[in-house]
């Protein structure tokens, strides 16, 4: 057991993540062709508009549809469907916690691939910086509130169904993911009413922003993701946990430095033991970049599965350095 744990601690996390992400992407975007169906309560952007290839549907789509039911239905029999749907979503979610974002979400993976292209081209990354970061952190919660309230308003008769599934309409996943199965149908603006025009137009615009933004800024979109906000609100019972032992932390800032989401607390917070914040994607790069044994670790159902070690750190840093024959 100890032997195998040692081996895991020395893992090349970047490569491991790449293969997990690629596998998950292929399964989720093309699995439908193999009649794979994981249901429609997935805690990731496995887009339902990718009708042919999808192997499961992002929970936000059915959630918004269910909430838009007339209130008389919603507060009686349809409420049961809503609750069971949420329960299924919760069960999926608690297995990996936000690890769904860092390892499985196709939209997250796409951003990492754009990052990889930028790296290949030798272009520097951009950062939000602390001030912008603080200014942006509430956006995802507002989006989450809107995506719940607007459908409720439709059900209550305040708005027309043109505003249905509002978040899906502006989500870059709807525009981009179907393209991977050769379906350009979502690449349009629906001018049939003011609502649809605004939403689908916004969707097109945001999709463009998504591609440009995540090319220059690592995980550009995740800062605004309402799914990420929802995750954070229900993260307490999750099995996969990111733990920090403040006493062992030297605040060297390595974890903050490599964090795609620019989460400062990972380095500076020495009080909290459960260090996953609302923006975290559990990509675990921080653990891989930590040279302080045991300061950061990953637990699954309270079992330590991966932790910071000097050995692992050294191996990853020596490997991560450019391989151009400049070994000392």
């Amino acid at each position, binding site marked *: 057991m100890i032997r195998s744990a040692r081996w895991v601690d020395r893992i090349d996390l970047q490569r491991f993540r790449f293969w997990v992400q690629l596998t998950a992407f292929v399964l989720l975007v093309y699995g439908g062709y193999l009649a794979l169906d994981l249901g429609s309560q997935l805690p990731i952007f496995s887009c339902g508009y990718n009708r042919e290839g999808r192997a499961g549907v992002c929970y936000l789509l059915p959630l918004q549809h269910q909430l838009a039911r007339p209130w008389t239905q919603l507060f009686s029999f349809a409420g049961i469907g809503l609750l069971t749907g949420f329960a299924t979503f919760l069960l999926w979610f608690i297995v990996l916690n936000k690890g769904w974002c860092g390892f499985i979400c196709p939209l997250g993976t796409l951003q990492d691939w754009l990052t990889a292209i930028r790296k290949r081209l030798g272009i520097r990354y951009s950062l939000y910086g602390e001030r912008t970061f603080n200014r942006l952190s509430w956006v995802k919660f507002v989006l989450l509130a809107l995506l719940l309230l607007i459908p409720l308003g439709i059900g209550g008769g305040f708005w027309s169904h043109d505003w249905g599934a509002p978040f899906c309409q502006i989500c870059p996943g709807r525009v981009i993911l179907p393209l991977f199965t050769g379906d350009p149908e979502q690449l349009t603006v629906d001018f049939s009413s003011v609502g649809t025009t605004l939403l689908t137009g916004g969707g097109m615009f945001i999709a463009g922003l998504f591609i440009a933004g995540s090319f220059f800024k690592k995980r550009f979109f995740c800062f605004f993701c309402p799914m990420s906000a929802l995750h954070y609100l229900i993260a307490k019972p999750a099995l996969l946990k990111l733990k920090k032992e403040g006493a062992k932390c030297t605040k060297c800032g*390595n974890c903050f*430095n490599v964090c795609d989401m620019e989460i400062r607390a990972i380095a500076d917070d020495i009080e909290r033991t459960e260090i996953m914040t609302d923006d975290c994607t559990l990509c675990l790069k921080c653990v891989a970049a930590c040279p302080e044994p045991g300061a950061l670790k990953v637990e699954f159902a309270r079992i330590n599965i991966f932790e910071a070690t000097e050995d692992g750190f050294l191996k990853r840093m020596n490997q991560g350095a450019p391989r151009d024959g*400049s070994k000392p």
Partner: protein
Amino acid sequence: MAANPDTPLFNRTRQAREAEVMLNKLIDEFDDNPASMHYFYDLFRRLFIQGEKVAHPPGAQIGITCIQAPEELIRAVGAIPIRLCNGAYHYDQIGADLMPAKSCSLVKATLGRLHDHEQGVPRVGKLEAIINPSTCDQKKKAGVMMEELGYQVHDLEFPNVKESEPARIYWQRTVRELAVTLQRLTGRRVTRKNLNTAMARTRRAQMAFRALHNLRRKAPSLILGKDVFLITNAYFFDDLERWTSAVEALVAELKQRQQNGFNAAQKKAPRILFTGSPPVFPNLKLPLLIEEAGGVVVADETCSANRMLYDLPAVDEWRVNHMIDALADHYLKPCTCPIFTRNDDRRRRLLDLARDFAADGVVYQAFSGCQVYEMEQRSVARTLQEAGIPMLYVETDYSPDDMGQLSTRIEAFLESIKTRKRQARTQRA
């Protein structure tokens, strides 16, 4: 040896005699010095007592006056960083002509050594430039005095707050500008390749240090603290690869010692954590007195050892810009220097080291005139007291005059620790 005509004269200088007295004590008063330590004993003997010049491959030599000057950048442009912080009482007295009488010995000695130019020991030859991070007031002001002595000084603007983001950005910019300065100075560009090589070289040295550091957790002790200070002092000026190989050899020897159940100290030797003003050879009097009195220094929190070599930088994307920013973070964020506004990290670090290394007590050295260390004494003492760790605060300087008095205080401190431990044992029994 006729090539060096002043050798016979040299070893009769005050500087050489001071070094010889200290080195002989460090070696002769202890049995069972590790065989691998002879590299370092020999190095100090040749450089400090015989006045030999430090052997380095060709390259511009750049003096640094603090650990905050990023050595990887200096090495990337093919130059050699030489840490100038000096420990000689002889130079302290020369420096006293340049600084106010009540200044810190280390700053005075550093100036005094520079005053002797290429004859200053350890002899490293010509210094192309000196990088002087703006840390404490005395070092800050010493920069101009070095300029007056004829050196080219580059002030490295260092923030005195480290928690805030503006400070971090400011420091990153400083470090980027240093890269430009170094490029101008040496005519070589900092590239991804040479910076990576430089970082890998330093990383190897740091890992060797960490291996040594980790072995000091072991009880019984495998090595004495006086030897470790000598080793980390050698890092100031020695050739990087030679130093690293020597440490790696020592680590291998200590592992062998561990297998043989060796004990470098007495059986119930109190384990001491050393903090405060940095011991720099030949001023190793406090570590020496502790270990002469039967204690063993198992860890330290000083900028001449642990703080200089322990923390490791991480890079996410290996491009020059990101590498330089990561280096900047590494030289600022984990630093526990008392010049910063707050000292929470220093106190946390001490507690962590005390626990990890099973330290029985802490010895806190403050050089007279080093206000920041003097001022942090109370808060550090309180933190340690709350954790139940006894602390001895020693205000001293480079003068050997107080050794008798210090030795009495240290013996009493170690005795009180032994009594505490004995009482704790009987209470438990």
